[in-house]
Each structure stands twice: as structure tokens, then as C-alpha cells.
């Protein structure tokens, strides 16, 4: 199983992703510098969290023009799973690989805390190992994580079952109180039309060890690894 972890100037969760994939899943994971023009030959591509280009202007607005993003688009079209986490999600939206945008948190401040997610789709390569309605405890850490899209887009996401995760409380209730940033429809993660691109604000790579408070994030990486295995057979 070969993971590519993109590295933009200002990425800061790239090392966490690489280490988690290697140490907790024995996967092969390589950093890929933003100036590379190819990401061929990987089973999955991860756009990690951080502050690419300082998040100046808008989160992900400048990173989307990195040479590597053209290659990522090609791979995505070829069906390779692409996972955008936090800043990675923002970049994928700016790059048009996912619809909508992530704007300033409703509360204006950066928030770092454990939150709960309800799994809404278990047919994607990122969520296969889970059950619909399953509640995951995973941290968020962002200042611009409020998902916005126009009504038609939201309708399409709902109808086509493209919402992967929603913010909820510990019992799985999706409510305004359990929405940390004001995201429309409590959206925490969405899929592209083909289902091989996932963007999510929460950090699954921070929830893969008991000692860090939760192992619920493993589900995303285990799903990816299973799907890759399946693909090989």
C-alpha cells in the first residue's frame, strides 16, 4: 500500500500523516513536494493539514496553483483515492476537485477540540470499514472550517449521498449545538461525484492512538487500505 502525502510550503500535518501511516498501519508513505509534476504510482494521495502559503488571501487559494495539483487532478480523474484533511480539504475546494468553500468559523476563532462525527456514507473507499450512523470521536483544529455551498449544490450532495461525515453530539444527534463552526447541514466531510475524492475538516491522523485520546480515526485509513487491497485482487 503506497500513500503519497503532499507537501506544500506551509503544510504542517504532513509529518503526522507520514508517521501515522507508517507506524500505525505499516503502510509505505512518501512525501511529495509541491513542485513535483507527477504523483503517479500511488494507491492513495493525501493533502494534509497546515497553512499552505500561510493561508494568505484565502485558505488554499495559492496552493491550488502548485504544479503538483495538476498531477493530483489527473490521478483523481484516473480514480485514485484523494483525501484532503483540513487545509487539504480547503485546497481541494479551491482547486475545484470538490464543490463549495470553507469560510471563517461562525465563532470567528480558531477551534482545536475533540468533536463527534456521524458517518453518513460507507460506500466510499474512505469509509467502507464503517457503519452508517456510527459516531466517531476525532479532533478538529481550524479557523476556516465552516462549509458553505449554494442550495443546489447542497441538494445534490444530499441526494447523491455525497456527505461522508456530519458534526454531531456524543449520541449521534446532528444539532446546531454539535456544530463547531457553523457548517451548512453540519457538513464535516464531502465526496466528489465519483466518490474517490474526500475532503474533511477533522483530523483522522490525530485519532489513531489510545494515548492521544481516540482511535476512531483509524477507520478512514483502514478503509483506504482495504479498498486498495480489494483493488489489487
Amino acid at each position, binding site marked *: 500500500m503506497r500513500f503519497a502525502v503532499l507537501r506544500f*510550503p*506551509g503544510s*504542517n*500535518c504532513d*509529518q*503526522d500523516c507520514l*508517521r*501515522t501511516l507508517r507506524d500505525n498501519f505499516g503502510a509505505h508513505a512518501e512525501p511529495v513536494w509541491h513542485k513535483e509534476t507527477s504523483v503517479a504510482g500511488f494507491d492513495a494521495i493525501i493533502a494534509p*493539514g*497546515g*497553512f499552505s*502559503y*500561510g*493561508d*494568505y488571501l484565502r485558505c488554499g487559494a495559492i496552493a491550488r496553483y502548485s504544479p503538483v495539483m495538476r498531477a493530483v487532478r489527473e490521478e483523481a480523474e484516473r480514480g485514485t483515492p484523494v483525501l484532503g484533511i483540513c487545509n487539504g480539504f480547503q485546497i481541494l475546494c479551491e482547486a475545484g476537485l470538490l464543490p463549495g468553500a470553507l469560510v471563517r468559523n461562525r465563532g*470567528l*476563532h*480558531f*477551534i*482545536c*477540540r475533540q468533536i463527534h462525527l456521524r458517518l453518513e456514507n460507507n460506500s466510499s473507499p474512505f469509509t467502507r470499514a464503517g457503519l452508517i450512523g456510527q459516531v466517531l470521536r476525532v*479532533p478538529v*483544529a481550524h*479557523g476556516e472550517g465552516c462549509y458553505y455551498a449554494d442550495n443546489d449544490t447542497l441538494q445534490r450532495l444530499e441526494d447523491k449521498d455525497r456527505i461522508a461525515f456530519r458534526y454531531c453530539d456524543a449520541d449521534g444527534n446532528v444539532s446546531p449545538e454539535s456544530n463547531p463552526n457553523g457548517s451548512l447541514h453540519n457538513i464535516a466531510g464531502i465526496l466528489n461525484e465519483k466518490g474517490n475524492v474526500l475532503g474533511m475538516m477533522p*483530523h483522522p*491522523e*490525530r485519532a489513531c*492512538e489510545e*494515548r*492521544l485520546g481516540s482511535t476512531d480515526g483509524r477507520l478512514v485509513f483502514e478503509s483506504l487500505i482495504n479498498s486498495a487491497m480489494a483493488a489489487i485482487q
Partner: protein
Amino acid sequence: MKEPAITPEVISKHGITPEEYERIRGILGRDPNFTELGIFSVMWSEHCSYKNSRPELKKFPVTGDRILVKAGEENAGVLDVGHGWAVAFKIESHNHPSAVEPFQGAATGVGGIIRDIFTMGARPVFLMDSLRFGPVEKDAPGAAGNRRLLSGVVSGIAHYGNCIGLPTIGGETWFDETYAGNPLVNVFCLGVLRHDQIARGAAKGIGNPVFYVGAETGRDGLAGAAFASRELTEESKEDRPAVQVGDPFREKLLLEACLELLASGAVAGIQDMGAAGLTCSTCETASRGGSGIDVDLDLVPKRENGMTPYEILLSESQERMLVIVKKGQEDCVRQSFEKWDLPCAEIGKVTGDGIMRIRAGSEVVAEIPASSLTDEAPVYHREAADWTPPEVLDIASVPETDVQAALPLLLAHPTLARKRWIWEQYDHMVRNGSVVGPGSDAAVFLARECGKFLAASVDGNGLVTRLDPREGGRRCVAEAARNLACSGAVPLGATDNLNFGNPHKPEIFRQLRDAVEGMAEACRAFGTPVTGGNVSLYNENPSGPIDPTPVVAMVGLIEDEAHITRQSFREAGDDVWLLGERSAGLDGSQLLLIAHRRKEGRPPQTDLAAEVALQNTLRQAIRAGLIRSAHDCAEGGIAAALAECCLSGDQPVGAEVNLPDDGLRYDESLFHEAPGRIIISSGPENRKKLERHFADNGIPVRFLGATCGKDLSIGLRGKTHRWELDGLFRAWDGALQDLMDTVAEPLAAH
């Protein structure tokens, strides 16, 4: 270009005394020119030379068998943590910039301390912050302004630390009139490195090229000197900023590029450009290397046109480094910085004549013996007023406080309230090492680079130091060590930040001297050398100097993950115990301050020998697996500590305890702040063992009761006070949030 003449005004405006000026003439054998005067003024300022505090700092213990780089030797001290690994850490203040522009002031403070750490060749892994502000409660005088400062400082720290990807895993935050208009913003950074990775800030190797790397130089931070250089640039005076603007993105690139470069072996010496940027870095590297240095300002990357040598040399632009490169390796350096899209220029050479020679093209604009600016800077032994210990508080003069009402009141006071509103704005989880994040006595961090569990705590108590400076010094060290002990860690070393008023006032200097002696005494007792620190003087506001506020950050090690201990009760059915001596009095307590608005009394004295025994014995008990939780009693006394034990876990856990009758008043028993007391919980199966363990080691241990239910109830002399945890939690957890939600926040300047 025409430089202004050196007049007595110009000299005094540079903060240089007539005696110092004579000394300068002696060193140069002539009058300095304007640029040289500027150089001396910054290098001989308190900030760079510690001329008023150096004799005091010599009192700190600085040696120990773990010390790899001693205090003062380099930008930060380095301590061995075993298996060929080491840690570099330091705390630094940015009080005055934060008062002017809280967001950028605090942000650039973070940037500066991070550079100090990676300059040592270490990979920075976490931050802590120690903050103090004026009152922020609803109708407190100046509350609105203080809230803005708090909100600006916190978002500034968040902005810089989060962007670089460093978790802020702990800190402390106090609120008191004394800090109104003069907030304290001290930031700590720790990095890890292998012994063989330690980098030096020395200009070694005659003929080695000197490189300038990082952000271009602009007229940042010149306001301090602006008055003097007015003649130079009348037009630009208006928009010359006192506060530098930080660029965490650039710093992140600089950090990665420098660590990459250091690994390549091409570097002979490296030094960050902090205060007095180019000036300080050139003469310090030269004097450390016992060499000279020769640079051409025309080659320095600049952000603005028409900058004078004076401006270039004194600019405090951020995110810049000076790198001494091994001859022949220049291309290696250029390539690294190209890869990271960072400016980089060869600006000069290391020489053998011990002179700092600054050129602007063909013209020599400054020529000064490097060591005269650093080692030979003036040192002053200030006069200290003598001190009469304060009266012990006459408890009868304090109307007895209603204990039932006092606990929620104290817990809702910003100083004691939960700091979640602050730490949730910090990414305290990035780097996947925050095993115990903010919210327990000490933070515990797994440094993945070396697989070590590091514990850290930062503590200070301005109120106690005001009443009794020596005790204040002892106490902050003892508390930091106690916080580490509670988390299961062995303290290794400390770094200190001395926040005081104007040292020319004898009573202020006396506070400084006594506090330092108290800290030094305590550091010796705990065997924790001071690896470095920072001095911030002249912290005054219109109503006078701040309460003297020494702050210490201590770092410890936990060898076995199983020994990591938290402050929160784990579950119902555990025994609850109190460790430590009984004591009395409300002297210097938060109850006396908050409920009675009195800063009075003789704070109970820290018994260092007892404290050391207590902490060692607790660690043994933790290693023996006898302890389920441990929390020290600090602000708010035993009652606040018990509440924190109940409330600070993932789930609240109630407790029913009875306090031993020490013949004290109820409010005294519950809220007095005698140091050296710890609340622990343990499994009932270990009751006998645990009692024997502490008794055998001569540690007072008293059974208080058990964890249970959804209330906290405290009995004393047959009378029981009971609080619902829900209510206490709302008071404690919500207080800061509720206050800050009402802030009219200025738009962040970024």
C-alpha cells in the same frame, strides 16, 4: 549621506550616560559616529547586555551532569535527555510590543523564541505561554481594553504557533489591576535534537563567508530609535512602525531550510537576528568566535529603498538569520534557500582582527572591537532598598467569608477559571504528541523524534512575590516542580523570565535581587539548573510598577509511559488523600484578594526540604502504581483544588471529603494557600500500602474521603458544605467564555 552630529541630546536620547560615552571614546580612541553610537546604544541596552541584572543572574545554578550547553553560552541552553538525545528550551517576553499591538506583538514574540530554539539545531516541538492582564470582569475599570488585549494576544499567539505547526500545550493566565496597560506576555518553546546536532552561534574560521538568509530588511521596530534618526528620514518617520509584523509562513520555511542546511554540514555558525537584528548577530557571533567580522550593507536584501546604515543595522525585521558558512560550501546554502524560496545573500567574511567592520559599499560606516559590545558591556550593581517583612495578616480583621458562596465565586474569577477559551484557540494537538494537553498540572508531550515523554509547566505568582519577593521566587520554582511531580515526571532544568519594574528604583531592584535569590535557592534544592532566561524591566503603568512577577518554566522527563498521571479524579469509589503540612492564614491568598480586595499578609513560607521529600515520595508512589490522580493545591487553596480534581476530566467525578480540624476558620481551612500540598486519589485496595509508604517517608498523609456521585461535599467539624458539580462546572468552565463573547474585538491585523 549626511549623518547627524553627536550632541549631548542625541547621546542621551540613545539612553547612553555621559560615563558610558566616555567609555565608548576610550574603546574607540575617538568619538563614535552616529551609526556607531546607535550600535552601542542597542548592544549596551538592558535588553541585550543585561547590564542591570547580570550580577543577579550569576546567582542561578547553571551546572549539572545533564547540561550540554550552559546558560548564556548560546541562544538557549541544552540538556541531555538520554540515548544521545537532548532538549533545547527557553522562555522570552514580549510585554511592551504586546501592549502597543497585542496581535502582532504576541505573534512576533512567538516567532522570536522559536528562532532561538532552531538556531541551536533543535527541531521545535511545543510551546507554552504565560500571560497576565488587567481585570476583564464585567464592570472592572478598563475591562473593555483589557479584554481586547487578551483577545489580541491570544489570537496573535494562535496565529503564529498554529501556522508553524507547533502545539501550545500549556501555560498560565492571571488577571490583576497591576497589569493594566502593561500586560505580561512570556512565551516558552522547546526543541529536540541529537547531541551531535548542537549548532553554535560563533563566527569561526577566518575567511569563511557570512550569509544573510530569510526575510528582507525593512524599517521595522525602529520607533525606539526613531527620535534619534529623525534627521535622517523626516518623511518616513510618520509611518515608521514600532511594532514588527510577523510572517509565520516565512518562519516555517526558514525553520525547515535551516534544519536542512545544518544537517548538510555546511554551516560553521548560525545566529538568529532578534532584537538589534543585524548588529547583535554580527558582533555576538564574532565575539563568541573570538574573531572579527566584515560585512557590506549594500549586499543586504532590503524591503525598502534609501535605508541608511543606521536603519539597516538597527532594524528589527523578523524571520532573518545570519549563517557562517564553511568556505567552499556556498552553493549548498544557496540551493537550500532556493528550494524554500527564501532570500539569501553573501554579505561578508569572518576576519581575524576581532573587529566588527561594517561597510556601505566602499565606505566603512562602523568599526568597533566586537567584544567591547558584548562581554565588555557595562555592568551596574544597583542599590537595593532594605526590606522589612510584611505583618502577618490578623485573621480577625477579615470578616469570615461564606464558604458556600465563595467557592463558585472563586472558580468563576478569570484567574482561577478554566482557560479553555484560550487553549482551544491554540492547535494544542498538532505533531501528535500531546499526551496530556492543557488542563492538567503539567503538560506531557511525546517527542516522536526521540520517543521521550517530556513534561513541562510554567508558573509564577506576582501577588506572593509582591508581599515577599524571596518566597515568591522560591514558590514559583517549587510549584513548577510540584506540577511536574504530580504528572509523574522528574524535573531536569528550568528557564526563567524576570518581569519587574524600573531597576533604578532601589525597592524594585531589591525585589529583583530577592526573587532571584529565592529562585536560585529553590533550583538548587530541586537540582534543576537554570539553562537560560529573559529579563523584562521597566514594566510600569501610570499607577506605578507592576507587582514583581518572576516566571519559571520547568521541564521534566517521564521514563515510563505507564507513570503519566493527571490531576482529574478517574472514577467513583477511589480514596482521596491530602499530602503535606497543615498551615494557616489567608495571607497572600486569592480569597483575600478576590473576596476582600486585599493584597496583604506574610505568605506561608515554602519549606524546600519538605517539598523535595514530598515530591520524591509522590513519584515513588506513582512508579509503584499506587496513584490514580494527583493535583497540587495552588490558587484558591484546597477547595479550588478539589473542585478542579472533580471537574477537569472527560467526565466530572464527585467526591465526599472531610477536612481534618486544624482549629482554623472554615474559610481559612478551605482557601488558604500554603504551598507543598497535594491531593491524590488511589484505589481502596492500596489504602494500607499507600498510607505506610508516605508515613514511612515522613510525609504527612491524611485520608479525606472518597470519590462518588455528582456533588462535591466538604465536611469540617461536623458541618458539611455541598455543591452540585453541574453548577461548579458552569461557573468554572464558562466564566472566561462568557466574558470574552462580549468583546468588541478590533479586526485582527492580518
